[in-house]
């Protein structure tokens, strides 16, 4: 009788399994086993283990650590527990009311089943869906096997990066949630052997450079405990626009998180971040600066969009993303600003 763990070279590697119920134990456990991984929702990790892209010798199940809370902080912000499920986060009354941009972004991603499993911490750690990374049948991928090359450079790269890429890797970050978190200037609270530290969302994900195998600045022995949202002045003057190849349940070709602090038709401040265009959620501060202090208008949004894409370096088959991103920015700002 076959043993149902996969077959042939595409079978999952054997691994040890341990449940932990507090952050300190989790950090201690992961420090002891080189290459071990935390298991939360598992929607990305188990999938990658089935493909043998990830082969951890040990999984440390952190689902029993009490980090599922979503609560208001004294400064008027909200703390999102790292293990709160994406669906519970999107539907929490505080998020729907104060951070609708985040609710929209989360609800635009994956499927209801996956959002019920996926955690906030795990969403931050999603790996790219570049097909050369996901399928070990392709031998060249610097992210999976450093130094092996990048097949996407001259191969299939319609969905790849147009900003911040390197000649080692042109993969994109797949998350929608993280694009909204970038616009909302979230902070990631992590715990390691030496205690807690806080990483600004803009510093959490990396550009590929010469080390595309490293996605984030999180250390291998650190556990994400929460995502802290500062108070938001944007409220309903925000919009998450996602362009994809089918109406639902698909990764973004381009997405835009737009948030405007509006005062009687004038922009006090704005935040703009793009998804599907880079190795990390791509916040465009130059465009934000172009918007600040100006009167809401479509022509202003057009200027901001041009500025946001001024550094774009598309490749053979993804030049469409430059124009698509510009138009998506204009549309998202138009809706966020109430001009639609």
């Amino acid at each position, binding site marked *: 009788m076959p043993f149902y*763990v996969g077959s042939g070279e595409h079978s999952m590697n054997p*691994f040890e399994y341990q449940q932990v119920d507090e952050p300190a134990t989790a950090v201690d456990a992961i420090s002891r086993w080189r290459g071990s991984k935390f298991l939360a929702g598992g929607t990305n990790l188990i999938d990658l283990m089935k493909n043998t892209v990830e082969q951890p010798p040990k999984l440390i199940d952190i689902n029993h650590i009490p980090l599922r809370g979503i609560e208001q902080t004294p400064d008027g912000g909200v703390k999102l527990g790292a293990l709160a499920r994406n669906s519970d986060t999107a539907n929490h009354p505080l998020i729907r009311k104060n951070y609708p941009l985040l609710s929209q972004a989360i609800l635009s991603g994956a499927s209801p089943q996956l959002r019920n499993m996926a955690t906030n911490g795990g969403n931050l750690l999603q790996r790219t869906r570049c097909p050369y990374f996901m399928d070990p049948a392709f031998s060249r991928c610097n992210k999976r096997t450093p130094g092996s090359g990048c097949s996407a450079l001259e191969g299939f790269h319609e969905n790849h990066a147009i900003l911040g890429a390197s000649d080692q890797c042109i993969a994109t970050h797949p998350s929608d949630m993280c694009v909204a978190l970038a616009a909302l200037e979230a902070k990631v609270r992590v715990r390691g052997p030496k205690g807690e530290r806080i990483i600004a969302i803009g510093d959490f994900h990396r550009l590929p450079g010469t080390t595309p195998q490293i996605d984030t600045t999180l250390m291998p022995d650190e556990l994400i405990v929460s995502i802290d949202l500062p108070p938001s002045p944007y409220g309903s003057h925000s919009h998450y626009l996602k362009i994809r190849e089918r109406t639902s*349940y698909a990764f973004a070709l381009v997405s835009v998180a737009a948030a405007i602090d509006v005062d009687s038709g004038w922009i006090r401040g704005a935040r703009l971040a793009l998804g599907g265009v880079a190795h990390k959620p791509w916040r465009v501060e130059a465009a934000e600066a172009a918007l600040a202090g100006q009167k809401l208008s479509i022509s202003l949004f057009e200027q901001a969009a041009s500025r946001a894409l001024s550094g774009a370096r598309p490749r053979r088959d993804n030049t469409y993303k430059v124009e698509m991103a510009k138009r998506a920015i204009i549309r998202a700002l138009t809706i966020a600003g109430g001009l639609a």
Partner: protein
Amino acid sequence: MIDCKLSRRDFVKTVGYFTGAGALGLQLISVETIVECAPLEFSASAHTVELTVNGLVHKLTMDTRVTLLDALREYLKLTGTKKGCDHGQCGACTVLVNGRRINSCLSLAVTHQGDQITTIEGLSGGEELHPLQTAFIEHDGFQCGYCTPGQICSAVALLEEARRGDASFVTQDLAHTGRVELTPEEIRERMSGNICRCGAYPGIVQAVQTASRTL
């Protein structure tokens, strides 16, 4: 399959707990099925877990790699839940865990100790179909039927999510928190995690809408 050479010596012991229920006799309330497997040579770790499926507790000892989907199908022989893509992309493996719909193919069985798992086999009350099963038949919500158990489990959870006011990406007003009116657009978005390659979507949407009015 690489493991065919390995013999899996297992035995199944079924213990029924019976209790008096009412004047007319006995009602089965819990069955414990114990499946034990000989440790595999290359298996890093075998774990024992008690899975509660459709109200029955099953004690299983198995490799840590076994997914909830494979535990249901290959160990407990509950083959109603289907394996489609095995990568969380098609929804054929959808089951309810503590009332929430999940993809059982991406969830390890060892993580489900103490959870209440409901599969398609657990929805009907004996010979009486669940209203969603009836609605799928009434509206021709399938052709080959392979995706149907996942579609129906997904729809059962969908109705509960809509009842409690969960939003979807097409929900216009996120500030509105009451029961969601299940328009065809809302149903399509909320069922997007279940793929039907026969294309029975019009019937599926109608079935879910009909059931939402009767439940």
